[in-house]
């Protein structure tokens, strides 16, 4: 069987499953997230380092073993952003922008120093840089901000048409557009699209931290692609189809660290001179090269200087955000702003899955350390009391899973009733919109002269924002203030009823 065909089949199905993951309903998302995400490198790595779980650790170990045995096949088989680039590349070939590829010089200083800086900044507690360049996060944000809204609009439009035939279905809520986050993502997609349209898998070998890290492992992988120098007729066909531009036909060498394992060269070579075999069989040529040494020195130097820079100047910026009056509210299960910003990879899966669309991307609200990480978008929406989906699907454990009972007492913020704005206090007229929707008994009425004044008891509040969402005044008279460290709320216990709950009355009609 042609390995290229297998590769296309696998990557197309993975990409399709990702479409379902980001556009499907609650059940689809819960199922697919546990099936797909342990085999995505950054989620598996971040999960293992910050909130270890067996599934993701096994995933990470399998990915590392796979790379050590087969090279960077992850990039061609499993990475959905790789697949997206392959779509761009195929498009470019179809319309003739770039029909063939050619050998490119390695940009090792760039990719290894970027990797170094990302590792150091992550070690210092900020995933911002990683999140900007991580392929899984990029594809997640791409799906969440472009594909899902498009899909939902199409779906809602179809539903409107179906009404004409008396078929009624529930429409889907659409996330609000958060402009700064959208612009960052548009910029990234444009950069990656341009790179792939013009230069194939250039992103994978310059900006992608996963590519760089797996490349280091692939240098010593068991199976390697090789050209038999003696038999090669120099037809250059393999270099023409090499999207990574890593085949140096002049010297009949293949740069293992940049090869994305697409098997194109293997299947096109007319004489089967390009081979994929155990590295032991291959004639061990130079294990030492001056080039590699300079790379090593360069990356160590870059990492060192980056480390100094972070330590002196940027450390303050990376400190956890503390109870500033307007600090953002992190989703339930994220323990604290510190825990959340330290482990969220900004893939926005929670943003796309959230049924009430209350989770939206932030921009710099969490500070520079938590760029684009999701937050609760009050009062535009509210967190559904019964729902605990985001914790169930979060791949990195930034939002830890909560049982419904735990979620219902997890206090992510407290409410503040602004009596100088509230219509009941200002106009002395009944309103009660907030009390009506409060799921926890935080809000109750005090009856003064047959007018019902809302009153707050924050012991029970979980910060779900239903009251703020319902409040009819503009600006809102009741707002949620963030808890930098999430707390436990008390559960309201109804006073013991002296009579049985279901009383039966057999009086005569009162009229």
């Amino acid at each position, binding site marked *: 069987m042609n390995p290229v065909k297998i590769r296309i089949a696998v990557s197309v199905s993975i990409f399709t499953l990702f479409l379902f993951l980001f556009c499907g309903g609650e059940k689809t998302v819960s199922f697919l997230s546990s099936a797909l995400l342990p085999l995505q490198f950054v989620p598996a790595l971040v999960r293992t380092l910050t909130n270890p779980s067996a599934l993701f650790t096994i995933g990470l170990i399998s990915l590392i073993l796979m790379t050590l045995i087969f090279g960077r096949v992850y990039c061609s088989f499993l990475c959905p952003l790789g697949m997206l680039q392959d779509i761009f590349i195929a498009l470019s070939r179809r319309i003739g922008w770039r029909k063939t590829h050619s050998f490119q010089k390695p940009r090792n200083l760039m990719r290894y120093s970027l990797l170094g800086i990302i590792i150091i900044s992550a070690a210092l507690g900020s995933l911002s840089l990683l999140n900007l360049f991580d392929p899984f996060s990029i594809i997640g944000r791409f799906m969440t901000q472009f594909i899902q809204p498009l899909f939902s609009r199409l779906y809602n439009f179809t*539903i*409107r048409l179906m009404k004409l035939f*008396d078929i*009624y*279905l*529930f*429409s*889907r*809520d659409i996330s609000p557009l958060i402009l700064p986050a959208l612009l960052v993502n548009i910029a990234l997609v444009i950069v990656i699209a341009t790179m792939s349209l013009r230069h194939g898998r250039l992103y994978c070998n310059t900006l992608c931290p996963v590519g760089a890290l797996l490349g280091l492992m692939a240098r010593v992988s068991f199976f390697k692609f090789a050209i038999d120098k003696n038999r090669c007729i120099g037809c250059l066909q393999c270099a023409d189809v090499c999207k990574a531009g890593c085949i140096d036909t002049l010297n009949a060498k293949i740069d293992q660290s940049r090869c994305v394992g697409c098997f194109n060269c293997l299947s096109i070579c007319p004489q089967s001179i390009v081979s994929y075999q155990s590295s032991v069989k291959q004639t061990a040529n130079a294990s030492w090269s001056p080039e590699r040494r300079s790379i090593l020195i360069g990356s160590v130097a870059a990492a060192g200087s980056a480390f100094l820079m972070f330590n002196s100047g940027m450390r303050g910026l990376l400190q956890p955000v503390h109870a500033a009056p307007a600090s953002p509210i992190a989703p339930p299960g994220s323990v604290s702003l510190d825990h959340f910003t330290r482990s969220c990879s900004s893939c926005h899966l929670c943003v796309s899955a959230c*049924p*009430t*669309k209350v989770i939206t991307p932030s921009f710099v609200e969490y500070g520079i350390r938590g760029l684009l990480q999701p937050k609760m978008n009050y009062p535009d*929406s*509210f967190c*559904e*009391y*019964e*729902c605990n989906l985001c914790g169930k699907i979060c791949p990195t454990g930034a939002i830890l899973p909560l049982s419904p009972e735990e979620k219902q007492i997890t206090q992510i913020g407290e409410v503040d009733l602004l009596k100088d704005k509230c*219509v009941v206090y200002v106009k002395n*007229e*009944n*309103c*009660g*919109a907030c*009390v*009506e*929707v409060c*799921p926890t008994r935080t809000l109750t*009425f005090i009856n003064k002269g047959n007018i*019902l004044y809302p009153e707050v008891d924050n012991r029970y509040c979980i910060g779900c924002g*239903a009251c703020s*969402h*319902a409040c*009819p*005044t503009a600006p809102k008279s009741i707002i949620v203030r963030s808890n930098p460290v999430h707390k436990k709320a008390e559960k309201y216990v*109804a006073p013991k*009823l002296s009579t049985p*709950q*279901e*009383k*039966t*009355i*057999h009086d005569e*009609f*009162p*009229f």
Partner: protein
Amino acid sequence: MTQTSKTDRREFLKKGLSLGLAAGGAIILGKTDFLHAREPARTIPDLVAVKNGDPDAMFKKAIALMGGMEQFVKKGQTVVVKPNIGFPRRPEIGATTNPLLVKTVIESCYQAGASKVYVFDNVVTPTSGNARNCYKLSGIEDAARAAGGIIVPVDDFGYQTVNIPGAKTLKTTEVHRLILDAGVFINVPVLKHHSSAHLSIAMKNLMGIVRNRMKYHLTGLDQCIADFCLYKKPDLNIVDAYRVLMSDGPDGPRDPKDAQVTLKKTLLLSKDIVAVDAAATRIFGKNPEDIGYIKIAHQQKTGNMNLNKLKIVTYTM
């Protein structure tokens, strides 16, 4: 003098006896349902109240006493049934209309010849996820489907702005087109405690056919609830007072264990939305005079809250 007084006495005795006989007979015959079976109600009573039965049986009895569903639904008409599905709560809590009642009402509409029966409510927090929960948890979605009703979810597209002539506060609002286009509009509220409006019954239930209910909260609930009835009165109001939520309304507690529910096992039927609200208020144990919107609607001549002025038929099963 004596002559006249004699005749007077005789007359008095005669009249008294015959009146007593008639009244007694009416009571006996009424109990056995003999009168109505013989003579279908030519004059529809203002209000029918039935108690001590299951929701479906009580409705069947009540609508028969009202002269049959054919009085309200003509052959080929489309019907909108508007239960209270405002909150994601189980039926035991009494925050939503009894699903069995909704099912029986839909069946009855089809039996009367309705071409289509729609079921609609704009839930209190109208996100599609929450609406789905409300429809599902209340048991109304399944019950309505079983009877062939068409469940219509909330969306933002189907609303049309209307003016309300004579309104004091709610001069204009947006109403769902389904209601405007329907041949028959049947209101099927549940009687329950309401934190800010005291009680939620038939008039309050109409907040679920407008788009922006927060305008009511902001500008005065009682006046707005009463104002809306100047625009649209349902063709029939069926009040579910089987399981009555006595406190913590309108949503009630999440846990059925905490719900303070009284089994009143009562059903009210009337064309007059004010009368039916007044009667339900009595059943709850309150005085209609104390419920702001009932009083305002009575003053605005939407209906009559003086129950002693109305022709009421009661029946105990």
